[in-house]
């Protein structure tokens, strides 16, 4: 049996939404080089909907495939839905991951949540500024 499912390999070999959004409305970065995986998510948000999303990942097959899958799952979705995205849902969409690889995939959920935090922080700052 192969290490990864066909779905994982598909997302790993042909990652969706790779890259950077220069004028992103939100950026989330999680992980560190010490533990081995780093993920960065860029969001373009309009009317509380994720209009566009891009990612950059330093990491293993599991980390890259999870990033790719997670971007597909949130693209075009309202923030109310995006904030409920879980690692479990990402893993299931990938037809599962080996047990010791789950911890790498958690970063996708964390990166998106970190980007949302960034978005709300930026919004409250502009609201304050315009007060």
């Amino acid at each position, binding site marked *: 049996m192969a290490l990864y499912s066909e779905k994982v*390999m598909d997302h*790993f*070999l042909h*990652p969706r939404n*790779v*890259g*950077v959004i220069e004028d992103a409305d939100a950026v989330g*970065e999680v992980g560190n*080089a*010490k*533990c*081995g*995986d*780093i*993920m*960065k998510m860029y969001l373009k948000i309009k009317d509380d909907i994720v209009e566009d999303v891009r*990612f*950059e*990942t*330093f*990491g*293993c*097959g*599991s*980390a*890259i495939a999870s990033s790719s899958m997670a971007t597909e799952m949130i693209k075009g979705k309202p923030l109310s839905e995006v904030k409920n995205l879980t690692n479990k849902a990402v893993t299931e969409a990938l037809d599962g991951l080996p047990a*010791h*690889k789950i911890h*790498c995939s958690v970063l996708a959920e964390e990166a998106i949540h970190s980007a949302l935090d960034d978005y709300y922080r930026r919004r409250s700052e502009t609201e304050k500024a315009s007060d």
Partner: protein
Amino acid sequence: MNIYADHAATTAMSEAAIDAMTRCMREEYGNPSSLYKIGQRAKEVLEQAREDVASVIGAEPREVYFTSGGSEADNQAIRSAALAGKKKGKNHIISTAFEHHAVLHTLEQLKAEGFEVTLLDVHENGVVRPEEVEAAIRPETCLVTVMYANNEIGTIQPIREIGAICRARQVLFHTDAVQAAGPLAIDVQAENIDYLSASAHKFHGPKGTGFLYARKGVPLIPLINGGAQEKNRRAGTENLPGIVGMAAALKETVALRDAEAARLTKLRDRLIEGLKEIPHSALNGDAEKRLPGNVSFCFEGIEGESLLLLLDEKGISASSGSACTSGSLDPSHVLLAIGRVHDVAHGSLRLTLGRENTPEDVEYIISAVKNVVSYLRGFSPVWRDLQSGKTPFIL
């Protein structure tokens, strides 16, 4: 396209070994301990294999004990020397920080049993310094265990010098020669080796078979108790087909050795030269004191597992010391021991060339690795930060 470049992990069995094994399985089914002719013939085959193996390392046949592989041989040698030491009140063992886990985990266990263990520095070039071995020896030192050549970075250790020091200081000396036995010429007499571990599957023999050389007179206790096989040092009916396959593979490897060493060294150096063209990369371990087929690199800004998966897609089998390939959070202890920081150690690649590899393979590997490294760097946030100057390059 299929290029196997992971000969340090294991090797394909040679036709000579397969032939010897199948012949043995068909014709020599007897138990070497039985007194009738079929048994005694099996016994002869067993002892012939022992002679063949012994002659390769300059040992006497009775100093060779067949085991289930390198791990068992390491465990048995270290435990035997440690227990004998303990009886004399000697509870200190010297080893190195980058041994195989078969050695390190055995030492961990001995530590829990009250032994004191000194792990010597292997320095940036991955080579132990004999004078540091000498300086670490104390009156209560019962064993020095230093690997012959490292399995990840391929560096060859100054075994002869260490052997001489241990002999002069009357300390037992074990070497894990799993990566060296076969490709390198070894003489246990000239090098003052008391114990040596080897494993058949690293030199085109079968898996699950190896041997321990134990100089006559050194302590040797069984790990497996039972029958009187292997002079009471290793119970259990002998794995005769495996042992015969190992002997055939070893003989063949030794016959090809000098020509292969010269050929592989050339391929290795070409591969190193090609990979060095990748910016912000570095060879791991000494460039000269290394096994003929070993190439180990770190590439900054990328992670090893994804590198391996993409190389696999291109038909190249290789390995890495990244955390994600080991299933733990830490990258290889070998890379950390030569001073590679975590960030860099995650981006490691080990290519170990062997008998089937050709110059064309090497050129293909060079272009594939260049390709994959630059592809992965293309969407690595770590690489972005390095390139923009946000974090400084290490390599």
